[in-house]
């Protein structure tokens, strides 16, 4: 399915970056739309912040503490990603981490050390803010107690230059769900916004049934999306599945990010979920980022320009500096195995 940017869409996603993660640029194009003026007035009124273009990045699933056959390199991909984003000419305003910051450790002290190591590495990113949500490895065994000690609340929201960001926690209840309390909070949180306001939800698990038998779903994801249904410009960013995936349900686009530890196989062609084996000849295979761009105001109806960035062996060896493979990727409902080769 090819998709085109809806002319009515207030939110414009554009991105060009040399970094790992997903880099988005929001350009509201206020001069092109009548209702944009109302949005501008609204944000100025509620937080004194008028919409403006900006960039942010998404990192996902670094699993700090994991060391095993699928990735014997530990945090190397994560650390390289930090170095790479710091070399980007486009400094992100902030970075979102969509869960599984750490690999689970049933020993509390060991898990706390992993969270500290994560913070140490993430703290090297040249950006103004880092926002996180937990994955099940971070928070599902203890109800999110240790996570909150290190990172604060697991669900919250903030505004940035005319875009409303909502962090949802769909892991801390043990089950893949956000739960009734968070749903009530979400309804109240978004109620103050006009229906045209751009909203970005970031969470760990997919909010739709991507592959339930692989636990790639959120049980009350439909209820979340029903709360957001009145809003015209909603984007969901998530992790968990360790691979590129893009799906559009109605007006909402759901973007999955690659991980920074190991990749999973393609759910469309495999019955059983498996980690892709480590390949010493291509140690960062399937690890990397997706870039999303548009032609912006010059051509608002143009399809999104989606590019994946995959680290290469040359980058791993450090012989040729940072090299990336950029490929157009506008396909929906497909995994990454065919777009990184």
């Amino acid at each position, binding site marked *: 399915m090819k998709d085109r940017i809806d002319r009515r869409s207030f939110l414009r996603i554009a991105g060009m970056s040399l970094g790992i993660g997903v880099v988005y640029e929001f350009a509201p194009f206020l001069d092109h739309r009548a209702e944009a003026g109302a949005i501008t007035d609204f944000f100025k009124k509620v937080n004194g912040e008028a919409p403006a273009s900006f960039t942010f990045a998404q990192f996902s699933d670094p699993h700090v503490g994991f060391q095993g056959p699928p990735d014997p390199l530990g945090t190397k991909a994560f650390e390289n990603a930090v170095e790479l984003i710091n070399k980007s000419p486009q400094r992100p305003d902030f970075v979102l981490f969509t869960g599984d910051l750490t690999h*689970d450790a*049933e020993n509390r002290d060991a898990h706390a050390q992993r969270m500290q190591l994560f913070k140490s590495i993430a703290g090297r990113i040249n950006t103004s803010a880092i926002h996180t949500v937990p994955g*099940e490895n971070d928070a*599902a*065994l203890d109800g999110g107690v240790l996570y909150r000690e290190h990172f604060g609340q697991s669900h919250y929201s903030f505004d940035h230059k005319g875009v409303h960001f909502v962090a949802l926690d769909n*892991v801390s209840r*043990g*089950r*893949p769900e956000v739960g009734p309390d968070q749903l009530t909070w979400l309804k109240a949180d978004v109620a103050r916004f006009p229906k045209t306001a751009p909203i970005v939800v970031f969470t760990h698990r997919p909010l739709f*049934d991507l592959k*339930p*038998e692989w*636990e790639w*779903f959120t*049980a009350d994801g439909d209820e979340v999306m029903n709360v957001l249904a009145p809003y015209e410009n909603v984007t969901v960013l998530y992790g968990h599945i360790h691979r590129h995936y893009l799906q559009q349900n109605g007006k909402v686009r759901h973007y999955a990010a690659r991980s920074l530890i190991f990749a999973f196989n393609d759910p469309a062609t495999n019955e059983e*979920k498996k980690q892709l084996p480590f390949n010493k000849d291509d140690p960062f295979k399937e690890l990397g980022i997706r870039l999303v761009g548009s032609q912006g105001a010059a051509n608002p109806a143009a399809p999104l320009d989606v590019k994946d960035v995959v680290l290469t062996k040359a980058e791993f060896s450090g012989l040729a500096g940072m090299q990336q493979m950029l490929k157009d990727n506008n396909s929906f409902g497909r995994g990454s195995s065919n777009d990184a080769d």
Partner: protein
Amino acid sequence: MTLTKKLVVLGLLTGLAVYATPSRTRAAGSAQVVKITANKFHFTPDHITLVKGQPVTLQLTSTDVTHGFMIRALKIDTDIKPGKVTEMTVTPANAGTFKAICDHYCGLGHGGMKMTVMVEETTAKAPAAKVLSASNTVSK
């Protein structure tokens, strides 16, 4: 499990019978009883075969932590808390092979905790379903 969920499950599934084994008995009504035990990171048995259209009561227990039991195709999704029996009566409406997974995170082996549920068409020669132990899982 709420009454609503039980009614939904009951309405979606239809029938199961089982040969006499230590893991199952006949309940007071017509439904057979199948006992399934969950612990890190296994279901026992890990493979059961049911018969389409015949009710069965699943009695789920955990011997350690809270686990989940989810079969999306059959609209079954419940927690299994230790220290109590979680019971539901279901009647498979469709034949097929379905995967049950633990969907309540229980530790680092959680992702591999699953079992297979086969639902067979009812036939004159094979009216009953079989419950296979974890040690004799077979593929058909």
